[in-house]
């Protein structure tokens, strides 16, 4: 008999460029999530923090930092790091502990205070991340642009399509009080924004932000005792790694694996991430009511839509052009506004995606509510073979 993990509460600190300590964003999000759950901080048995890493280690181990800021209670803690998938791994660790029967209620928190501009290399000489900047000048947008250009040449995606993704997500973000950018934009504005890495313009690429997000997870029994009727269920989390040989060039690498000695896997990495979650949840892409995908660039949203199986390869543009991925369409994508409206706050990102799915499945998403939302999917991918897919059901 499997123990179900359900979502008791979600909370966010609005994304922005606030310039304060990340602890404050995380604690504020945690307090909001606890309030929504209707429990006290002292009820929490397990705290998992998604680590921020750019500030060095001391005092900044997230689980411990948030637990201490909320006040030491003797609760168990864990802190994890998995680049953009950090938040999902934190959720996975908490959910698993509940499913193992080792705890009833857990708090998951991620927050970040991001630097401005390009992400700079953290390591020093000899470090692979340092070398890709030194030798190639290959910033993150360069990798995003390689994917975008290949898509354009293979599938006929146009700059207008990319702009249309931004227009769609900006409109959604304008309806979200937690988004950093809350202004609708026109295709003309996107196409007039300066080119950063051809074919991606400034408005095609997500910014770096400050923000925080938190989720209170509990066993279904605990939720029932608390009187939570029909809570949103955390049905699956996938954190699979690539399978050798990974033939898609990934940040921050200089090259792919070689497929000369071993043939590539049937499913490329991004598809495999989503596939594992579908399998665990026992559902398929046709069951999904809405999806939050990781739009580091406008073009990447189109890639993801295909990778999670909402359509075949090269068909995402058609979904977009016919309005099917917009709010009110057949399968809305990034109704939160996505990274386009939030910007990246890395350890908070996957948790923020789950906040959106939770509110949507509860029918509590206000002006951006997706009708009849029953099953939500959120996916992302980070450096070093990290990625995640999360499925919620109701």
């Amino acid at each position, binding site marked *: 008999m499997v123990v179900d993990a359900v979502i008791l509460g979600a909370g966010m600190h609005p994304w922005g460029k606030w310039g304060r300590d990340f602890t404050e964003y995380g604690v504020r999000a945690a307090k909001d999530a606890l309030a929504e759950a209707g429990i006290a901080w002292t009820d929490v048995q397990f705290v998992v923090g998604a680590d921020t890493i750019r500030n060095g280690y001391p005092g900044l181990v997230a689980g411990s930092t948030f637990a201490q800021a909320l006040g030491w209670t003797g609760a168990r803690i864990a802190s994890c790091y998995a680049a953009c998938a950090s938040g999902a791994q934190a959720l996975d660790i908490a959910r698993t502990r509940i499913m193992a029967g080792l705890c009833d209620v857990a708090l998951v928190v991620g927050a970040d205070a991001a630097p401005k501009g390009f992400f700079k290399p953290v390591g020093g000489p000899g470090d692979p991340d340092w070398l890709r900047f030194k030798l190639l000048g290959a910033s993150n947008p360069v990798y995003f642009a*390689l994917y*975008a250009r*290949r898509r354009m040449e293979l599938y006929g995606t146009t700059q207008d399509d990319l702009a249309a993704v931004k227009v769609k997500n900006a409109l959604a973000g304008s309806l979200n009080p937690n988004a950093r950018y809350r202004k609708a934009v026109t295709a003309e504005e996107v196409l007039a924004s300066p080119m950063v890495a051809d074919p991606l313009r400034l408005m095609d690429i997500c910014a770096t932000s400050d923000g925080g997000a938190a989720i209170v997870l509990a066993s279904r029994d605990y939720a029932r005792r608390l009187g939570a009727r029909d809570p949103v269920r955390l049905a699956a989390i996938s954190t699979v790694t690539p399978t050798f040989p990974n033939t898609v060039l990934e940040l921050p690498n200089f090259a792919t694996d*070689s497929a000369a000695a*071993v043939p590539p896997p049937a499913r490329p990495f991004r598809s495999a991430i989503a596939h594992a979650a579908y399998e665990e949840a026992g559902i398929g892409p046709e069951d999904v009511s809405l999806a939050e995908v990781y739009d580091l660039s406008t073009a990447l949203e189109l890639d993801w839509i295909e990778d999670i199986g909402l359509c075949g390869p090269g068909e995402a543009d058609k979904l977009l052009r016919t309005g099917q991925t917009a709010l009110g369409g057949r399968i809305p994508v990034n109704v939160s506004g996505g990274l386009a409206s939030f910007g990246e706050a890395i350890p908070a990102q996957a948790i923020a995606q789950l906040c959106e799915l939770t509110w949507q499945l509860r029918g509590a998403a206000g002006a951006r509510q997706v009708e009849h939302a029953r099953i939500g999917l959120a996916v992302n991918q980070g450096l070093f073979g990290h990625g995640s897919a999360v499925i919620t059901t109701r």
Partner: protein
Amino acid sequence: MWFTVEDGLTYLVGTQCTACRTVCFPPKTGFCPNPRCDGEQLNETRLSRSGRVWSYTNSCYPPPEPFEAAEPYVPITIAAVELDREKIVVLGRVKDLTVADLSVGMELELTSEDGVWLWTR
């Protein structure tokens, strides 16, 4: 670094596992990345000097340090090139071409300058 020049020709230098023949670039020490191979002897090997463009882009703004950008800055061009024999895609800066000159599938060959390998026509 990671390449050699002989008779005016530039070759990328990777490694190859003596057990399963898997090729790596950049060169690796230690363990073969093939999960079904216990090989620990990775010998240096020269990669093919040419391949086809997998994708390409540029950097319209100067990349951050430690990159040493020219002043005044001229956008650098970057290509990911697929080597047929090794079935591997290798990133590199592109010499003397802009994104307007490139397309997916175009053949490029290797050269080098100022201590770094470059793709060119």
